């Protein structure tokens, strides 16, 4: 394996050519494994139920049945699911970004008693999974009548340690001289946050926004536990409802899955740099 080949020489060497061909063959094979399930999903979504499992696989249906895409909206409240998921995602995103960046500014740039201790509290609990405390949290929310409500889920997801941690890392890199100059000019701390920190931290905000979006849009167990009335169900719950109620109708299940994936796919195409950046920064520990 020529994995660590960094500088391919310009002149032609047969073994190098073989190595590079092998490299592309491996990568393309990997891509096929990743993409074929999606291709099969789209292809099946355009077939009649009888044709879904014909073998050999007919990748391009002879007469695409677009009607599947029309029928799914009538069978389950998909549109309502989109609406609820959108509300949930946007609210959580805005709250996460605002509260995290405010707290991160204080932790990165202001001095106060107990700063290190409080920050340590965030860091030590960051790895504790939700499953550890979901039961008492649910009981607490139920006592406040916040179950079966979108607001309950929004406040459950609005305050993250990850967001504070990530934004703080970014703010640490902003030079103090800049803030001192602003203070001399008479800008208040709130003014510095709003006029200097937030505009400078656009990449970090974008990364946090994407992370929040991916989590919230795809979250299944949170809404599954909290939301019981059909009118409040999120897209993922409606999709699941379709899969359990029409479990023999594969063509339409695939159509519903395709529809559910479209928003993420579009955003991913435009913003994939930020999707990837979020992961890369969370992996590189400072």
């Amino acid at each position, binding site marked *: 394996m020529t994995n660590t080949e960094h500088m391919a020489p310009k002149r032609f060497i047969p073994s190098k050519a073989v190595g590079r061909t092998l490299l592309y063959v491996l*990568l393309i094979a990997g891509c096929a494994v990743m993409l074929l399930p999606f291709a099969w999903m789209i292809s099946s979504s355009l077939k009649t139920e009888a044709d879904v499992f014909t*073998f050999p*696989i007919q990748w391009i249906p002879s007469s695409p049945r677009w009607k599947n895409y029309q029928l799914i909206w009538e069978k389950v409240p998909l549109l309502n699911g989109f609406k609820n998921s959108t509300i949930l995602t946007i609210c959580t995103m805005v709250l996460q970004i605002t509260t995290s960046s405010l707290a991160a500014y204080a932790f990165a740039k202001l001095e106060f008693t107990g700063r290190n201790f409080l920050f340590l509290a965030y860091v030590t609990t960051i790895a504790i999974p939700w*499953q550890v405390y979901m039961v008492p949290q649910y009981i607490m929310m139920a006592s406040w009548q916040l179950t079966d409500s979108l607001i309950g889920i929004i406040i459950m997801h609005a305050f993250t340690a990850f967001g504070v941690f990530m934004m703080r890392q970014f703010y640490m890199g902003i030079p103090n001289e800049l803030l001192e100059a602003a203070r001399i000019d008479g800008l208040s701390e709130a003014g510095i946050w709003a006029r200097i920190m937030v505009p400078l931290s656009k990449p970090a905000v974008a990364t946090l926004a994407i992370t929040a979006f991916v989590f919230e849009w795809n979250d299944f167990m949170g809404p599954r536990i909290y939301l019981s009335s059909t009118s409040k169900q999120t897209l993922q719950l409606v999709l699941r409802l379709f899969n359990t109620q029409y479990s023999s109708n594969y063509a339409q299940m695939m159509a519903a899955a395709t529809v559910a994936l479209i928003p993420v796919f579009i955003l*991913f*195409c435009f913003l994939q740099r930020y999707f990837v950046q979020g992961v890369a920064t969370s992996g590189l520990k400072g």
Partner: protein
Amino acid sequence: MTSIQKTRRPGARMHLKREITAYLFIAPNFIGYMVLTFVPIILSFVYSTFDWNLGVYKAYTGIANYRYMFFEDLDFWKVVWNTFYYTIGTVPVCLILSLLLAMLMNQQLKGKTFFRSVFFFPYVASLVAVAVVWMALFNPDKGPVNEILMSLGISDPPRWAGSAEWAMPTIIGLTIWKQAGYYMVVYLAALQGVPTELYEAARMDGANAFQRFAHVTWPMVTPTTFFVTMMLIIGTFKSYDIMYVTTQGGPGVATKVLAYHIYNNAFVYNKYGYASALSVFLFAVVLVITLIQFRGEKRFTNYL
């Protein structure tokens, strides 16, 4: 004297004002995080000592829930074993695969962004959506995977999610497929941080590709490997959504894992006290993994 007092008092007041400002900045997140995360974590421990069934609070029972967990709950050890199986099946393969992909990607390539996007996309795709596709592909009776296996001459292909032996491997496969791209990106960031001079020096010393991997790449990415391993282990220990949307823990209890057991006890059987005891067990596991990672990273990390 008066002049000193004059200058000191505003100073103290300024200091207090600065403190208050800082606390106001952290307050929204901190209070929310405190109430909705910290307090429930503590409450997990408290509730785990309660006999609290069907939503009706009964009484403090000490360690009765733990005794029940370790000695009487017939499903508990099965569930713990399944969780280990899921972890052991997922973590090493996912780790090796993601490092391999990252090394392939960390070269001068045409279409690098495209490849990276393709590998990463399953991670951002909705689990509910990809699970239903996966289940259709691996449908034991008519799914394309078994059709292909049969056309290759395997007359009796596995029944995948429908059989107790193959259900877990099917879920492990789905997990790896969905997450390898995520960890590939993590590794890729680490690989890009390895100075090229190290490779040049190794090359000059006559190191072959394998030696360069063993003596340069691997030691340089060790911190990332610890991080990825920990993330993967915690990830597999906490997951149950994937089982929920594929097999519902079945057939029988073949794919019922620890977090699923917590979910069932809390939200299906309404045994809040016992579910909290199970949560504390999960907490202990995560704590041990984190401590091992912490220790291990200090000991084995090789900063060249």
